[in-house]
């Protein structure tokens, strides 16, 4: 089942995502980054570089490093947007024979789709190695204002990259899909996209599951980079005022300023102020100079206020063109990293009078939407079956009134889990299976789903029989609990219908209660386990005395017996501390049996009268410590 890629082919950065197990996942590229710069370069040695790597060598190879190729896609050379690029970019833009804008690199001409194809090729290759499968199909996004020629160019790019482009979808539509808005009815949606270099506002009308673009507007040269520049200028100006040096003239200092500015801007989206600390930023005859300044959020908002305000015009125009009021817009979506800034969110909020959607990472939301569309078109998946989970834990009651869980809550069903339990008393003829549902430690605090008995057990010392208890939940949530005596093969079971469970509120309430009572439940459980342990110990001790007979000296026998009595007395009380200390005492006393028996020369050939339940080893091993996870004691005990 080959995945279909969802690709956001952006002006500055590109992102790839897929649907995996019903969830959109952004794929990291080969460098481990979720964003891939839309930069392509051809080095002097003819090597082709794409992404971050291409960016890094741009300064050494400006004529052959291409960026923002999206601005040229599907456009003619004479297009004003192209002409603007011709003046601004470091690479050569030429007129092709058919009037299209082409790029000249390393002595060869390339069409914009060919360049974009190189980016898509990298996205594809990286996705293939990450997923371990061949990828041949994709959904690619384009701005809502792209015309036919531009859309075709994008499709061509995909084809050159070896991808069958199942669909070209609009970026604002993709963003709407990412927020699940296609599930709503007849809505007006506004998508506010402020990225690294461009601003786009789109209004969409959703009706009958179809998105229709009503109007678009924007500013093709307004973005986060401009915000950064404001901070750099402020830092440089302040520094010049204080120290008389213009850092903008120092290439290295400028580099550090730019990086610090971007970091500070990002910081200030979640803090009210940040320190910009750049020691040894430059030096003059009097020595090294440091830049240390505090930038508050308020100051930042002043610095970029006009940039943010510049987005208002296009928004109002787009609304006007769509023939709607800002208040008529039902949903507003934020796209693009710069929309993380509180002041930007505030502007959007004030224009539309409602809270914008921003839960999905704004850098990735378009790719996520493309992936969702890709998932729908993938089609290979036959009726994706939505599996349920069991909302609360299921288990049985074990010795001392404790609930032993077999299936944890939120386990996906169908599922099956079984464990081995045993008896709590000698010659126990039957076991009671009490099926419980819930999160509390004590069975009485949980919901009882059913009871049944497995009878006809062969007489045996306690702990010896092996009763396999299996919980089996089918896809419909019906629970079958089976108890089987491995020795006799006798089996009993009970079927519990799904509806005998609880409602959503009940579930939440029970989980909450479990959390509230976690502390005391745990303590209670520990007390019960201590008691079980002590009880076991006493039983073992009695057996040992019987089995060892007169190999144990009378005085030691007397000590053991009184220790046993102390334990049984303590168990009769409710004092857990006393039970614990009596049990420890008994354990110590029993150690002496081993010492005594082994010190009797040549006495080691006695039959394996072990202490353990199976009686398999002759050594005086005490019963397994109670905090071993496998030895949960129950009304029947787990072996």
């Amino acid at each position: 089942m080959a995945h279909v890629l969802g690709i956001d082919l952006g002006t500055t950065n590109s992102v790839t995502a897929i649907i995996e197990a019903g969830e959109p996942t952004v794929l990291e590229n080969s460098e481990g980054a979720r964003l891939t710069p839309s930069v392509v370069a051809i080095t002097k040695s003819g090597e082709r570089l794409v992404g971050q790597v291409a960016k890094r060598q741009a300064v050494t190879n400006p004529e052959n490093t291409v960026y923002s190729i999206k601005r040229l896609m599907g456009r003619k050379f004479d297009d004003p947007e192209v002409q603007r690029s011709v003046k601004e970019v470091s690479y050569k833009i030429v007129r092709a024979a058919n009037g299209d804008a082409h790029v000249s690199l390393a002595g060869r001409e390339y069409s914009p789709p060919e360049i974009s194809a190189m980016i898509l090729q990298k996205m594809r290759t990286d996705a293939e190695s990450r997923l371990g499968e061949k990828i041949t199909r994709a959904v690619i996004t384009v701005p809502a204002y792209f015309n036919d020629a531009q859309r075709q160019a994008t499709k061509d790019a995909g084809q050159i990259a070896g991808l069958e482009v199942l669909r070209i979808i609009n970026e604002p539509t993709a963003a709407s899909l990412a927020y699940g808005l296609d599930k709503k009815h007849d809505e007006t949606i506004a998508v506010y996209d402020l990225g690294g270099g461009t601003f786009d506002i789109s209004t969409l009308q959703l009706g009958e599951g179809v998105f229709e673009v009503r109007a678009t507007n924007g500013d093709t040269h307004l973005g986060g980079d401009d915000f950064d520049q404001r901070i750099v200028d402020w830092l440089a100006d302040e520094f010049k005022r204080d120290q008389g040096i213009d850092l903008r003239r120092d290439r290295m200092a400028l580099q550090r300023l730019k990086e610090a500015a971007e970091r500070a801007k990002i910081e200030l989206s979640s803090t009210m102020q940040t320190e910009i600390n750049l020691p040894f930023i430059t030096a003059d005859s009097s020595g090294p100079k440091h830049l240390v300044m505090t930038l508050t959020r308020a100051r930042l908002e002043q610095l970029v206020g006009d940039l943010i305000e510049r987005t208002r015009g296009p928004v109002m125009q787009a609304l006007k063109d769509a023939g709607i009021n800002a208040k008529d817009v039902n949903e507003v979506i934020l796209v693009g990293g710069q929309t993380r800034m509180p002041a930007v969110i505030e502007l959007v909020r004030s224009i539309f009078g409602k809270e914008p959607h921003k839960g999905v990472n704004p850098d990735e939301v378009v790719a996520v939407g493309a992936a969702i569309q890709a998932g729908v078109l993938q089609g290979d998946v036959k009726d994706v079956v939505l599996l349920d989970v069991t909302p609360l834990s299921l288990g049985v009651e074990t010795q001392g009134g404790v609930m032993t869980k077999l299936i944890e809550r939120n386990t996906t069903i169908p599922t099956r889990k079984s464990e081995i339990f045993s008896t709590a008393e000698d010659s126990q003829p039957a076991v009671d299976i009490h099926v419980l549902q819930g999160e509390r430690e004590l069975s009485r605090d949980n919901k009882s789903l059913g009871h049944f008995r497995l009878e006809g057990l062969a007489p045996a010392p306690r702990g010896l029989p092996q009763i396999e208890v299996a919980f089996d939940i089918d896809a419909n949530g019906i629970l079958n609990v089976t108890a089987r005596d491995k020795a006799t093969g006798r089996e009993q079971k009970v079927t519990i219908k799904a509806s005998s469970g609880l409602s959503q509120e009940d579930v939440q309430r029970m989980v909450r209660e479990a959390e509230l009572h976690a502390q005391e439940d745990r303590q209670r459980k520990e007390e019960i386990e201590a008691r079980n342990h002590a009880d076991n110990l006493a039983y073992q001790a009695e057996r040992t005395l019987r089995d060892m007979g007169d190999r144990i000296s009378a005085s030691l026998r007397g000590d053991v017996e009184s220790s046993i009595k102390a334990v049984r007395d303590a168990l009769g009380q409710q004092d857990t501390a006393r039970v614990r200390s009596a049990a420890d005492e008994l354990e110590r006393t029993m150690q002496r049996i081993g010492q005594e028996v082994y010190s009797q020369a040549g006495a080691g050939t006695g039959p394996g009268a072990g202490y353990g339940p199976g009686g398999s080893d002759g050594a005086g091993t005490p019963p397994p410590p109670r905090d071993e996870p496998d030895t949960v004691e129950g009304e029947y005990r787990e072996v």
Partner: protein
Amino acid sequence: MQPPESEQQTDDAQHDEAPQEMEALSLEQQLADARQQRQECFDALLRSQADFLNYKRRALQDQAEARVAAQQELLEKLLPALDDLGRALEAAPAELAEQPWVQGLHLVARHLAMTLQQLGVRQIGSPGEAFDPHRHEAVMTERRADLPEGTVIEVTRPGYALGDRVLRPSQVIVAAAPETTAVAPTDG
């Protein structure tokens, strides 16, 4: 029993057998359907199992990568401060070099460097190397006649690698050819 070839009887027999035939056909059809359905279910089961195994495999892979990525992130955050320390030491005035406090500072820096080394972090990028965008980031070029084009002249900010993974490329100044390279041939 009547011989089956008799037409009359055949007609009657056919008449009698028709519903049975239909029933037989229907059963055959049902059997075929059931077989196909079974095959489909089986196929779906296998795919499910395969998906699960693949997911497990990827989960383990992702876990290993996540650990490395987490380390990387943490170290990356420390690098700017490390850079500043480097700058501070470089700018130490010569006349203070013998001062014990200054020497102590150098020792502290050395300790830090050793710790990083022990963690598997190493510096990358040094003058004289051929520029490699996988390890270096060019911030500036300088025309030089005495160095081959594309040689790293100076490292303005050190780069670091963790194992064979580049944490951060070193920022470098790269030598450019002394005279302007010929303009690319004009387009046809």
